[in-house]
Each structure stands twice: as structure tokens, then as C-alpha cells.
């Protein structure tokens, strides 16, 4: 971090690791992968071409023997220690990785390995590694996101199959997913955590209606799904029936942990090596051009912004090291998650203050390097709500890391069907919203 920012860990390679590194380097340079473009948006689920390209990138990794480097051989992986994955990530830095497969890698495969049946793992992991299947998580519902275990989607047994009815929301990549891991209620007569089951759902079936959602900031990264007698074969259960909460907990742990160490195939981890404590040159340029560089107040804002950027650069690796060493549990990722929300909001406020009126209205063809208008909205909404709200992260930190007691609440003891809950969602809209 403080020395050469492009340092790889090549100097500690064993002979075997060195051979792997050179093989990866050679393959990556000849596989026709697109280059990594700085500041390219990580997810563009509303762009079909983007997703198709990611499928071919994942396929190329598979063809070269670099998909599932640390996963067991029997499920299509290479069965190598973590070190080889690190080496691959270092060598893959110049190239665009298959971001659309990040959900598979970070949050689907780990709980599947932990809880899935042998048959399920053999059937579903290889197609993910080959680039054939994109998965999504079907967790949050319109009736509630933070209170995940209070979800309303019902699964009823009908002969050899389960029939699922309800609605899911905030699904990253639902419109392109081939399969989904769907948490649904199988027993409403027991307390809420005890009556849930995690299903493997084929997304391309008649009963599944997927509607992209347009957010306030105009982005379209998420979807809502309407499940109308969605059919799931009886064997396609991840873990045991009525033990879905344990599977979901594992999934959420891996999600937070991935956010903490840097999302694999994502922007954060790729950018990890480029850490140096620099102040955004764009902001400095704007301040200079506005003739405000010597304004004492502006200089205070710039200083604070630099501090915030440094905290966001330095804290995730520290927390990740703590989790890797076992000194911190996976819950510690909530620290990073909460911080990104808090820092994002404060950073946006600083930008707004620096930009003044230019931050709310500017000529359409003008050169406004930090238009805070929509970016500001996005930063606040996504960082402090997506992936679990700041409030839920704060609860996790307080209860799981600091050991503070839970608040008393009726929902842990009473059967689910005796609890108050929000109304079920309305039927699917006739028309999905128009594309941009």
C-alpha cells in the first residue's frame, strides 16, 4: 500500500505456484478477453450485450482451467489452495472479469457447498463454472426486506413437486438469471425462523414473471419477481425442508464476507492493488477552475473528503485481514457495509456543498465532472439500503460483535401465523416499465 502500488506477490511463489502463474498469464493474454476499463459500471443488468459478454468470459475461464480454482474437482473445480486464486486474481487484473457471475461465485456456491446434497452440487456447480447458468438470490419481498424471516412467499407440497406463490424483490440480475435460490415458507404454524425452506428455482418457467425495477436514480439493476404456481421438483431443496433459515444465514454471511474482502469478479477486489491515498483529481480540478482553491472553507471540505476516501480504502483490507486470521467473525463485514453507507452519504453531502447550484442544475452539454444530481441519489440509496440496510448492519455489529443483548420481541416465540405482517403484494403489473 505504501510502496509500489502494482506489486504482485510473485516473489513468494513456490515452483508450482510460479508455473501456475505463468500458465495463467499466458492463457489470459491469448484468450481474447476484453481489457478492464477503469470506472466501468460493475453491473449493467439492463444491457443484454453486457451479460452475454460475461457469459463468454466465464466460458473462457472454464476453457483455460481457471474457473472454480479452489472448488472441489468433483464439482468441476480445480481443487487448489486459496493461494492459487490470489495468484490468478493478480494476473487477471488487466482483464475484465465476468461480473455477472459474481453472485454465483460469492453467495450461491459457498452455501451450496455447505448445505447442498451431493446430487445438487454435481448438477448445478459445473454449469455455473462453464458460464451456462447465472443465478440470483430470491430473498427480500415487497412486504419486508430487513425482516427476512418474516417473508410471505408460500411453498405447498403437491405430489412430487412444490408449488411456490408470492413475490420477491431487489433481485440482482433476476431478468438474466437461469436459476434462483428462493427462500419460502413451508410451515406457517411454527415460529418464523423454523418454517422456511431454501428452494432451487428454474427462473425460465411459465409461473415466474420477472419485472425489471427502475430506481429513483434511473438505474435498473434490480428486478421484482411474481411467483404464480412456480414448480419446484421435491429434490430441488438446498439443505433440509424447514431448515432454510440456516442456509439463508450462511448465504448472508458469505455475502457480507465477500463485501468485506472485496467482491470476487467485482470492481473492489480488482482495484485492491491500486491503493494509494490520493485525493480525487476531478474534484480538485473543478475547485481550481472555479477559482476556489484558496478558499479556507473549500479546503476544509477537500481535506475531509480525502480523509473519507482513505478510510474507505484502508478499513476493508483491515477487516478482511481480521476475518482471514480468525480474529474477527464473518459478521465483521457489517462494519465495512455500514461504513460504505455512512461515508457514501457524507461524501455526497461534501460534493453537493462543493458543487453548490451546479450540483442540482447544469447545462445539458456542459462539462460537469462531478454531477452530483443522480450520482448523489445512487450513492445514498444503494449503499445504505442494498445488501441489507445500515440499520441491520448496525444491529449485527452491536449484537454479534459487541455482544449487546437483543431487544425483546414476540416474533421469535409465536407461530408465524399469529404475528402481525404487512399485506401480500399486488398481482403482477400487466406491462413491464419501458426501457430507458
Amino acid at each position, binding site marked *: *500500500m*505504501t*510502496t509500489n502500488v502494482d506489486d504482485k506477490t510473485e516473489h513468494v511463489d513456490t515452483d508450482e505456484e510460479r508455473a501456475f502463474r505463468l500458465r495463467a498469464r499466458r492463457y489470459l493474454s491469448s484468450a481474447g478477453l476484453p481489457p478492464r476499463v477503469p470506472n466501468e459500471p460493475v453491473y449493467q443488468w439492463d444491457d443484454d450485450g453486457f451479460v452475454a459478454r460475461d457469459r463468454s468470459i466465464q466460458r473462457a475461464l472454464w476453457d483455460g482451467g481457471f474457473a472454480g480454482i479452489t472448488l472441489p474437482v468433483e464439482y468441476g473445480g480445480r481443487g487448489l489452495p486459496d493461494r492459487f486464486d490470489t495468484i490468478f486474481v493478480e494476473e487477471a487484473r488487466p482483464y475484465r472479469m465476468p461480473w455477472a457471475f459474481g453472485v454465483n461465485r460469492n453467495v450461491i456456491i459457498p452455501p451450496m457447498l455447505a448445505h447442498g446434497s451431493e446430487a445438487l452440487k454435481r448438477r448445478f456447480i459445473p454449469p455455473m463454472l462453464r458460464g451456462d447458468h447465472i443465478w440470483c438470490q430470491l430473498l427480500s419481498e415487497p412486504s419486508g426486506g430487513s425482516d427476512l424471516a418474516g417473508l410471505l412467499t408460500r411453498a405447498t407440497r403437491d405430489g412430487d413437486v412444490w408449488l411456490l406463490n408470492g413475490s420477491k424483490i431487489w433481485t440482482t440480475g433476476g431478468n438474466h438469471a437461469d436459476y434462483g435460490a428462493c427462500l419460502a415458507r413451508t410451515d406457517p404454524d411454527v415460529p418464523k425462523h423454523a418454517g422456511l425452506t431454501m428452494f432451487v428455482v428454474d427462473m425460465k418457467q411459465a409461473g415466474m414473471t420477472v419485472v425489471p425495477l427502475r430506481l429513483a436514480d434511473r438505474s435498473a439493476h434490480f428486478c421484482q419477481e411474481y411467483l404464480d404456481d412456480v414448480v419446484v421438483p421435491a429434490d430441488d431443496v438446498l439443505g433440509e425442508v424447514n431448515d432454510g433459515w440456516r442456509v439463508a444465514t450462511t448465504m448472508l454471511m458469505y455475502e457480507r464476507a465477500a463485501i468485506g474482502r472485496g467482491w470476487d469478479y467485482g470492481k473492489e477486489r480488482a482495484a485492491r492493488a491500486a491503493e*494509494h*491515498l490520493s*485525493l480525487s483529481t476531478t474534484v*480538485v480540478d473543478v*475547485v*481550481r477552475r472555479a477559482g476556489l*482553491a484558496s478558499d*479556507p472553507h473549500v*479546503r*476544509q471540505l*477537500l*481535506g*475531509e473528503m*480525502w*480523509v473519507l476516501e*482513505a*478510510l474507505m480504502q*484502508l*478499513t476493508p*483490507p*483491515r*477487516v478482511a*485481514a*481480521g476475518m*482471514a*486470521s*480468525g*480474529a*474477527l*467473525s464473518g*459478521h*465483521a463485514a457489517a*462494519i465495512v457495509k*455500514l*461504513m460504505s453507507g*455512512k461515508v457514501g452519504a457524507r461524501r455526497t453531502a461534501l460534493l453537493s456543498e462543493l458543487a453548490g447550484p451546479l450540483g442540482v442544475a447544469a447545462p445539458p452539454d456542459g462539462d460537469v465532472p462531478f454531477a452530483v444530481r443522480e450520482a448523489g441519489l445512487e450513492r445514498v440509496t444503494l449503499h445504505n439500503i442494498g445488501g441489507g440496510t445500515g*440499520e441491520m*448492519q*448496525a*444491529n*449485527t*455489529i*452491536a*449484537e*454479534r*460483535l*459487541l*455482544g*449487546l*443483548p*437483543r*431487544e*425483546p420481541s414476540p416474533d421469535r416465540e409465536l407461530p408465524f401465523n399469529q404475528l402481525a405482517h404487512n399485506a401480500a403484494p399486488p398481482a403482477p403489473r400487466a406491462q413491464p416499465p419501458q426501457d430507458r
Partner: protein
Amino acid sequence: MLVDGEGKRVRYDASEDQQLLRETTRRFLEARSPVSEVRRLLEDPVGFDPRVWREGAELGWASMFVPEAFGGMAESASGAMDAALVAEELGRVVFAGPFLPTNVVAFAVAEAGTEAQRQRVLPALAGGELVATWCFAGTGLSPGTRPVGVRATTAGHGFVLTGDSGYVQDAHVADLFLVTAATETGLSQFLLPAATEGISVTPLDALDLGRRLSDVRFDAVAVDGTSVVGAVDGAADHVERQLQLALVLQCAETVGVVDRVLEITVEYAKDRVAFGRPIGSFQALKHRFADHAMWLEAAKAVTDHAAAAVQLGAVDAAIATSLAKSHVGRSATEITRDCVQIHGGIGVTWEHDLHLYVRRAVSNEALWGTPAAHHERLCDLAGV
């Protein structure tokens, strides 16, 4: 601070030697210098216990920057990183003693001193027998990030020092002063016995009850050439590195203060009952605790980074230390203040130790440059 792991660690990748140093230091402080020492020493003319300081020196507290040839262990230590680790432990007990100034002066003399200066001073500093302090900041409202108070003019083969230096820790009992002064075309540094004629020390009323600060006046103090440390007019780089080290030690100490205060407050919130349940079960408090734990983790991250940057002499060490000071200084005051609020009435009593910690946190925010002064410095460093 975090209960599910070995929260004792400030650096999750600390070496075994560093772990040992931390544990030894913590055990020693628990036995010999718990926070109650601050109260015992309130009216003490020295303000710290010289025996404890010497015993601490035997544990290596003043040896990290002193080469082995002079009785130290610089070669086997990771200077700034090890010293930061000790400083954090000292913060946990609001330690009273000349840790920061002695180490900064030892660092300065080891780096730039003449052979004679090193022989005369370093073994005694490492052994805890001599107390040294650094006259750097100006008095009053001067920014604390630049040496502005003292001028040295040439006179024959020597110099004459004139001016005032402010907020000098333990100046009232120091044996030696390292003085940073403006000379004709740059900065120069001088190492003087405290008893040198023309030096007068005025103790300040200090918020921090565990730390004595003074203004030091140089009234036409005549010194000869042998007291110069490093190059005349060419000391700016050394002064900068000394400032960086001071900031790292101060930030690490502050991290220790906050770590301990949050520990105390979390325990209190688990034990204290209101409305039929522990107050720590109320979400209104939990979310504040979560924020505090988060900003503390960030404080540790940015302080670790600064310590490593200073240790390695990295190009961004100046930036790293100012970033650290801004965040650590400001967040420490906010967190410790809110911990008093969470305690309620008991938290504002004289008998409770909280105010001793708050006093240290608030003082550390203001000394060696306020966060605002460091924001200015950051803009200068970025060429804005």
C-alpha cells in the same frame, strides 16, 4: 474491543514479537500504572512516576529508535509500528509519562545527531534516565503543524535562540530540549540542556490531568555549534519526519483511549438495567455503539497505515499521518463524549474515570495540529 475475537490486537497481522510486546506492556501497566495513577499524581510536582517510566524503559519503551550500539534495539524493532503499539496500550490507562517526546527526540538524535550527541544522549534516553522533549509548535493559536515560534541567528561560532515554543510536554521536568528554529534560509535544530541560561518554562493549565504542558521561552539563549542537530538551514526533512512520528504516536494513543472507553461503556450497557432490561438492548443505543465500533475500526486502520508509512519512509507518509490525525482526532472526541452520554449522570462525576479519558481524547485532538489544520496541510501536500 470486539468480543468474538482477540480484540486485543490492533493489527490483525501483528508479528509474534509485537504480540508479546503488547501483552507485556499491558500486564505491566495493569500492575504498575492503572488509570488510578492519574489521580494519585494530580498534585505531584513531576506529574508522572519516574520509577514507572524507568521500568517501562527497561521493557523497551524508549529503545525503539536507539541503535544497539547506544543501548537500544532499533535494528531489531519496527520503530514506528512497535512504538505505536506501546502508545496504544498507554492510551488505555491514560498514561502519565514522557513517552512521546522522549521517543521523538531519540529518533531525531539517532537520525541526525553527531556521534558525540548520540553517545551522550541516546543510552540515557533508552534507559529512562534522561527525559527529553521537543519544542516544535508555536504558542497560542498557531497551527501546531509548523514550527513558527523560535528564531536562531548566528553569533560568532554559535547561535542565539529567541522566541516562544508552546504546548511542550513535560518541559517542566525535562533534562534536554530539542528545539526547532527558523534560521536564515531554512530550519535548524538544537539540542540543549534544560538548564541553559535564558530558557524559562511556564506550566500551562491543562485539560488533560495526566499530562503536563508548558510554554517555553528562549530569551536570547546563546548556544555553540556543538548543539546543532543535523544541517544548519537543512533540517526541514528531519523535522517533517519527527512530526510524522509524533502524530503516529499520538493517534495510536488516542486509539487506545477510545478502545478502552468503548469497552467500559459496552460493559456498562450490558449491566445497567432500565425499564426492565439492559440498556444495551435498546436499539437507540445499539446503533450508536455500532457507529462507534465502526469509526474506531477505521481509526485503527488509518493509524496502522500511517505507522507503516512512517516506518517505511513511504512517499505518502506525510499524507497518511495527516489523514490519520484528522479522523482519529475528531472521532475520538465524538465517541468518548457520546460514551459519557450513554453512562448518564454517573458519567459526569469526578469519581468516574471517563472524564480522564475524555480529557486525553480532546487534548489529543487539539495538539500537534487540529483536524482543520491537517486538512489545510493536506491541501498543501496535494498542491491545492
